[in-house]
């Protein structure tokens, strides 16, 4: 017997979890095709293009976390969500801080390194 005898609840759960992966894939596909499409064929200004790419990337990351990793606002153990939120905070502080500091240094001391 390859397929386990699933109770009614389990069967419903299977359908909803499979749907989660399917939705995750389709949304991610869309959020990939849009920025690639605009970058390859679109006619946006540079700033608009960058905002589109960044926006799609951030949303797609959330899609992955929600639909593939099942991280939700309420469904998890408190510490699972706390950790990813704290990680995001540290990334913002360290990453943002690095950009702020380094670009100030470039402006004042190494203008040749400005991109």
């Amino acid at each position, binding site marked *: 017997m390859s397929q*386990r005898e699933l109770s009614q609840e389990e069967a419903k759960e*299977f359908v909803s*979890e499979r749907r989660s992966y399917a939705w995750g*894939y389709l949304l991610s596909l869309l959020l*990939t095709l849009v920025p690639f499409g605009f*970058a*390859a064929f679109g006619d946006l200004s540079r700033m608009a293009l960058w905002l589109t790419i960044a926006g799609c990337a951030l949303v797609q990351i959330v899609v*992955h976390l929600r639909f593939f990793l099942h991280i939700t606002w309420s469904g998890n153990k408190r510490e699972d969500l706390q950790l990813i939120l704290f990680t995001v905070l540290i990334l913002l502080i360290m990453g943002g801080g690095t950009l702020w500091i380094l670009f100030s240094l470039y402006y004042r001391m190494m203008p040749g390194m400005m991109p």
Partner: protein
Amino acid sequence: MTSTTTHRPADQARSPVRHPGLNLGPSHQESEDVREEMVFGFWVFMMSDVIIFGLLFATYVVMLGGTAGGPGPSDLFEMKSAFIETMILLVSSFTFGMASLALKYRTDRKVLVIWLVVTLLLGLGFLFFELKDFHTMFGKGGVPSRSGFISAFFSLVPLHGLHVTGACIWLIAILGQIAVYGVDSFVKTALLRLAILWHFLDIIWIGIFSLVYLGGLS
């Protein structure tokens, strides 16, 4: 211990959620506590790994100006290969999800192994295209010794590739364990942890194709 009963909307999983990623639920009750601990532990490790990549991303942005008169992003990156790699990795995330479902809801191992092997092949395919890419870049003079910018690229993207390689090796080791022991509780815990790694591989790649490839080519 913290409470596991929380109110969840009807469309979400009904098994109590003990750890990040897909929870196997009460029908896999054996070693549930161990699983909770080990998967959470791996989740914590992933967080520190995310910080490493985040810092490499910030470093990359900061080194965009360090081309030293050498080739820049538009000279070295190709949208087509980036797109192929992106698609491969995205599909592999989906196939790993299917493998996770097979693990949770089936008792045989055939379907599980098939999905895992497909995922492995996709992972190896990703690596093949990426290495080919690097080779092309070298041919165009895009070697790290040429400039800080190219060094920054090669400190970020190959690290991701190394993680993909590690995940593939781990996947092969798990397939070996399945061959020897069947799908026992150790294997289940390993697959749940590898699932987290695999999905994070794709998350980091979203950052790479957006910031490095699309950002650089536009």
